[in-house]
C-alpha cells in the first residue's frame, strides 16, 4: 500500500467520517484519533472502513454507569468516555462494542484527563495507555464485549512518522461524498482568472 503522511491520513478520515453522515465535530475527533493510532504504528483504516459501512450502533444512555449496553459505536462511546472521564469511575464494561481498536485514542484522552494508565481488554486483545504511550497485543474485532480498568502496562509501541493505510481507497470513496460536483457556474470566480497577457 502507499505510504502516506499523518496529515494526509487525518484529512482523509475527517472527510470520510463526514461523508458517512456523521457531524463535523465527530469527524474531526475521529481524524485526530486515527492520526494518534497511526503515529503509534497502528493502521486504523480497515476498522474505520468497516465501521462506516456497517450497521449503525448506539451511544451510552447513562455515561456515568459502570456498564454500557450495546451495540456501541466506538466513536460515540469513545467521545462519551473521554468527555465524562473526570466525572465517573474509571472502571467500565462495554457490551457489544464495535471495533474496540477505534476506542483507544479516546481511552488515551480519558487517561490523560484523569492521570491514570488505563487498560482496555476485548476478545483476547489487550491495550494499555497513559495518554501518550500505547501498548497493544491482539487484533481488532467487529464487535466484542470490552472492559476498561485502571492500571496495566506493556511495551510501548514505537513512534511512526508515516501511515500505511490498507483501506485508503474505501475511505477515499466516502470522503469524495463531501465534495460537490463541479459545475461550470461553480468553476467561475473560485480563484485566479487566467489572463493571457499576465
Amino acid at each position, binding site marked *: 500500500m*502507499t*505510504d*502516506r*503522511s*499523518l*496529515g*494526509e491520513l487525518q484529512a482523509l478520515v475527517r472527510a470520510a467520517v463526514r461523508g458517512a453522515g*456523521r*457531524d*463535523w*465535530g*465527530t469527524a*474531526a*475527533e475521529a481524524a*485526530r484519533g486515527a492520526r494518534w493510532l497511526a503515529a503509534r504504528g497502528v493502521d486504523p483504516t480497515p476498522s474505520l472502513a468497516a465501521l462506516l459501512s456497517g450497521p449503525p450502533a448506539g*451511544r*451510552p444512555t447513562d*455515561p456515568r454507569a459502570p456498564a454500557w449496553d450495546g451495540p456501541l459505536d466506538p466513536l*460515540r462511546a469513545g*467521545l*462519551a468516555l*473521554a*468527555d*465524562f*472521564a*473526570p*466525572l465517573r469511575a474509571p472502571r467500565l464494561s462495554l457490551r457489544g462494542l464495535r471495533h474496540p481498536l477505534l476506542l483507544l485514542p479516546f481511552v488515551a*484522552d480519558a487517561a490523560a484527563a484523569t492521570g491514570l494508565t488505563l487498560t482496555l481488554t476485548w476478545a483476547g486483545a489487550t491495550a494499555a495507555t497513559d495518554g501518550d504511550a500505547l501498548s497493544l497485543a491482539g487484533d481488532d474485532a467487529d464487535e466484542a464485549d470490552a472492559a476498561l480498568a485502571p492500571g496495566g502496562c506493556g511495551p510501548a509501541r514505537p513512534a511512526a*512518522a*508515516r501511515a500505511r493505510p490498507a483501506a485508503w481507497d474505501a475511505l477515499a470513496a466516502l470522503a*469524495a461524498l*463531501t*465534495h*460537490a*460536483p*463541479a*459545475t461550470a*457556474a*461553480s*468553476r467561475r*470566480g*473560485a*480563484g*485566479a*482568472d*487566467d489572463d*493571457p*497577457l*499576465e
Partner: protein
Amino acid sequence: MRAPGTVMRLDRMGASHQTRLSFMRQLTRRMQAEGWTTERTAWAVDGAGVGHAVYVVRTPRRAYSLVAFAHDLPPASRSDRVIAEAWDATFALVDGVATARDVARLSGDVPKQEAGRVTARELCLSRANRSARLWDHVVGRLAAGAQPDADRLAEVGYLMRTTAVYGSGKFGAADRAAYDDRPEMAAPFQAEMLTVWLIRTFVRDLVEHMARARSPGAVPLDPDLARGLGIGNSTGLGMAPFLMNHPRLIHRWIAARETALARVRAVERATPEARDVFAARLASARRNAEGWRVADPVLAAAVAGLRADLAAAAGWGTDGPFPWAALLERAGALGLEAQEALAALVLEPYGDLVDDLGPGMADVAAPARLDGTMTVAAMRAAVEAVHGAALRADWSDPAETARLWYVSAEKAEPRLAERADEPLEAWEQPLGPQRDAAALRAALDGFADCAPVAEVALARPDLRAALLRAQVAAAHAYAEIRDNTLAGGMRPIDLLRAKLSFFGATRFDPRSDRWLRICLYAGAPYPDEIAAGDADAWVYP
C-alpha cells in the same frame, strides 16, 4: 494589548501589513546570522528552457535542496487555477543534499503536482508560471546586451509567480511534526519560505540562461534590478479556510504581533537611532505606497487614503515621552491601512525587543480536546464573551447566511457559493463559526446551568465542534474572527491578506473579492548577497 474585538475584524485583517515578525524576514535574518550558504550543484536546462537544476542550502546543522524542473509550456495551457495540469516550472524542497537519484525519482511526480506524490524526504511541493508580459521583455533585452526597462519591472514586480506552495504532509511530503523540533524550522512556514526564496534564485538563473540561449552576447540582469524582483503569487479561496481551521495557531501569530506592539508602546523615550530608523522606514513605506498599483476599487481608495495618512504621520514628532504609544493613539484617527502600516513601522527599530517572539508563533501543543467538566453556565459565559451581540443577530435572515463554503470535486478546491443560487447545502463545510456559536448559545438554554458540557456533547453531537471552539477561544484571546464569515458581501481576500501579511507578502493586488496577486521577497538579498547585504529591512528599499 489591543482587544480581540478590535483586531480580529475582517476589515482590519484585510488591511494587515508585513512586520519584522513575518516568516520571510525571520528566515532571512537567520540565514545571515548563521551564515547559510547556497550552491547550485546542477544546471541541466537546454536551449528551449527545458530541464532541471539543483540548489543546495547548507545551514550549520543540515542541508536543504531545491530541485527545480523547467518545462516548455504552451502559452494557451498556462493557468494559475488550482485545476491547472501543467506549469512553466515545478519544484520540490528536499530534506538534505539532493542527488542525481533524487532528481530522477522526482522527475516523474513533481511535474504532475497534485496528480503525483512526493515522499517523506520532501518538505515542499510547488509550481510557478511566467509573467508572460515581463518574461519576453526581459529575455529580449538581456539577449540584446541591454537591461530591461526598470518601470516595466516595477509595474509587474516578478518574472514568475507560484500558484501553490504545499507543505505539511500534503501529497506525501513530510509532516511538519517530523521536523518542527529543528531550530531553523521552529517558526511557522520556514520550509515554504525557503522554497520560495530558492525559486527566486532559480528564476533569475533561468531568465539569464534563456537570454544566452537566444544570443551569445547576452548580459546578466543588473543586480539592483534583480533584487527588486520578487516571486509573485496568486492566492485564491484555497487559503481562506486556514484562518478558520487553525484557531490556536492564528491566536499565536496575532498574540506575538500584539505583544510586540505592547512592548514598543511601553518604551518611555526613543533614542535618536530608533527615531532615525522609524523615519527611514516610514519614508520607504510612503514610496512603496506611491508605487502600489491596484485595480480593485475598494483597495485603490484605501491606498489613496494610506498615502495621505502616511504623509500626515510623517510630520508627527517622536521625541516625546512614550512616543510610540502616543503615535499609535493618534493614528487611531487615520484609516485602517495607515493604522496597520504604522503598527508595523513602530516595531522596526526594536528587533532587540520583539524578534524573540518569532519562533513562538508556531503551535506545538497537543491537539485541543473538549473539557467535558466545564459547566453549561461557564460555557454560556465563554460564548458570550467571544461573540457578544453577534449571537443575537437574526440568523434566520438569509443575508446572515448568504454564503456557503464547499469543496469542489475538481482537485478538492475550496469554493464559495451564494446559498440561494446553488443547491449545495449537503456539501457545506463548517466555515461559519459565528453562526455555529449562535446555535450553540441558543441550545445551551435547554440544559441546567450546573450540568457539565459533556452532557451537551452527548445529547447534541452536532454542537461538539462549537463547544470545543468556545473553549479554545476562551483560553486564546485572538483565536476567533469576530465577524460573520457567511455574510453576503464578506470579502474572502480579507482572510487571505491577513495570512499573507504574516508570510511577509507585499504589493497586495486583489483581482476579485476572492483572489489576489502578491509579491514575495521583493527587495530581498540573493544567496550571494545574504552574508553582507540587508537580511532584515530589505522590504523597505
